[in-house]
């Protein structure tokens, strides 16, 4: 259960951090505001998931201790969320792919046999609903915008595609969670994801890559090189001044 909650909370922690890196640097003022909103939602969700994780673990660690005092190998997020922002198209495509998965995941978790999980999911799914709507809207408009915006979105899709498969791979923990009725198998979401993805890509005039190769490891603690740098920044104060209260 603890590991399962880390998987949920680390996704939103890491993606929320990535999105917050844009603050003040986005293409237009309205996007600065929208990105701050998304990052705020993600961090708010993190507090719920990691807060419950700390409670379930029972070692006295709260959400902050889990966010700021674990090293890379203890993180359980999908690799896609730690991929760097690169250009704005890349950032939007990463969000779109994540939101497609996340929204379905949360919708399923609303039916969890664990009331605490179902309760958090019910709160988060409303936000995820809005995130997905915004993501689809932007991917469609930019895919079907200028030749340049189309090319950027297609390139971002191709660069991020190898990180999609990991969302739907079942492992031992997933089987255990499914047996207890806490969370359905990730693989059970794939068909719905594909259908929604294809609909959006068709409107966006973008082509889904053919390869089904998937980079994996994030959910069990083997990450890309990027996560360590992110944590070095994010955890700096907590690590440098371990006695301080902020």
């Amino acid at each position, binding site marked *: 259960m603890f590991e399962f909650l880390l998987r949920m909370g680390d996704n939103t922690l890491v993606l929320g951090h990535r999105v917050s890196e844009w603050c*003040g640097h986005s*293409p*237009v003022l309205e996007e600065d505001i929208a990105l701050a909103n998304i990052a705020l939602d993600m961090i708010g969700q993190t*507090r719920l998931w990691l807060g419950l994780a700390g409670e379930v673990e029972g070692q006295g660690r709260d959400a902050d201790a889990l966010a700021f005092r674990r090293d890379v190998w203890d993180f359980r997020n999908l690799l896609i969320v730690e991929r760097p922002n690169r250009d704005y198209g890349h950032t939007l495509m990463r969000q779109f792919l994540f939101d497609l998965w996340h929204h379905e995941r949360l919708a399923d978790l609303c039916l969890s046999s664990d009331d605490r999980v179902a309760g958090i999911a019910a709160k988060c799914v409303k936000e995820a609903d809005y995130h997905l709507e915004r993501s689809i809207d932007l991917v469609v408009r930019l895919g079907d*915008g200028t030749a340049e915006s*189309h090319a950027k979105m297609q390139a971002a899709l191709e660069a991020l595609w190898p990180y999609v498969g990991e969302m739907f791979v079942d492992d031992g923990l997933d089987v255990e969670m499914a047996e207890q009725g806490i969370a359905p198998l990730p693989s059970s979401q794939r068909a719905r994801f594909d259908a929604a993805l294809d609909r959006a890509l068709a409107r966006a005039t973008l082509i889904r890559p053919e390869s089904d190769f998937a980079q994996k490891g994030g959910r069990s603690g083997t990450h890309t090189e990027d996560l360590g740098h992110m944590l070095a920044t994010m955890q700096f104060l907590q690590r440098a001044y371990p006695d301080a209260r902020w």
Partner: protein
Amino acid sequence: MYAQEVKSTGKGVKALEEMSAEERAFQERIDAGEKIEPKDWMPDGYRKTLVRQISQHGHSEVVGQLPEGNWITRAPTLERKSILLAKVQDEAGHGLYLYSAAETLGVSRADLIDDLLAGRAKYSSIFNYPTLNWADMGAVGWLVDGAAIVNQVALQRTSYGPYSRAMVRICKEESFHARQGYDIMMKMAGGTAAQKQMAQDALDRLWWPALMMFGPPDADSVHSAQSMAWKIKVMTNDEGRQKFVDQTIPQIEYLGLEVPDQDAVLDAESGHYRFTDPDWREFFEVLKGNGPCNVDRLRARNMAHDEGAWFREGLMAHAKKQQIAAE
């Protein structure tokens, strides 16, 4: 306030009897405390001065995202990170209200932004100073937003309706910003020796630039008289500065930090603090572009704008396609 040294007409204030009938009617409305609305007649100088002041204020909000954005990725707890993000998001929102208020005067946001990016428009000098430790997030909220509030509360009474209404809304959010800043300072000043050192360091560095936010001394402020007569400005630079010092020194003492100005002393007779002027030569250097971060701030804004061009163009192209399809 986030606008300093707003150039007005440069001419002296006309007496009522020197004015044309229109100018006179306009001045009388202002003197009677009426609000001027976008479609009302107004002197060119009033319009120009307001555009400069409101756009400078808007630019300050937009550039002001950067020094605080500098610490969002290093905020020490999830709660602090959320609060800081929400605050910076408010600043971006203030930028939007202010640009919208400026647009009611017949200018376009795109042109105003071009002026900023080309270095033709000013923004508050304070944002050309760096944020070097976490306590700066406290000090910026407390001192910078605190100084801004002193002016902005007064500006709720400004004569131009859309600007005045934007200020009412902005002030509500700014008081939350100042409170969260002071809350960080309380934690830092009451924390470990290292945290207290960060708090003092932030205060020492930001005190003088915060005093500069009110603009040059009244005696040297060539543009104030006409703006005061038009109620574009409703408080002089020195009045605002005095108010800020009077409210802030007791707060510094409450925190248990040293006041950066050793000569600051409460004058029992007037009830006001006497204090040392900031270094005005430094102020004018910063306005000229020689502050520690002027180049970096403008470069960051230009990069965001240039690298985002394809995004804005893509959205416009899609909207056009939709429009054609609908016709």
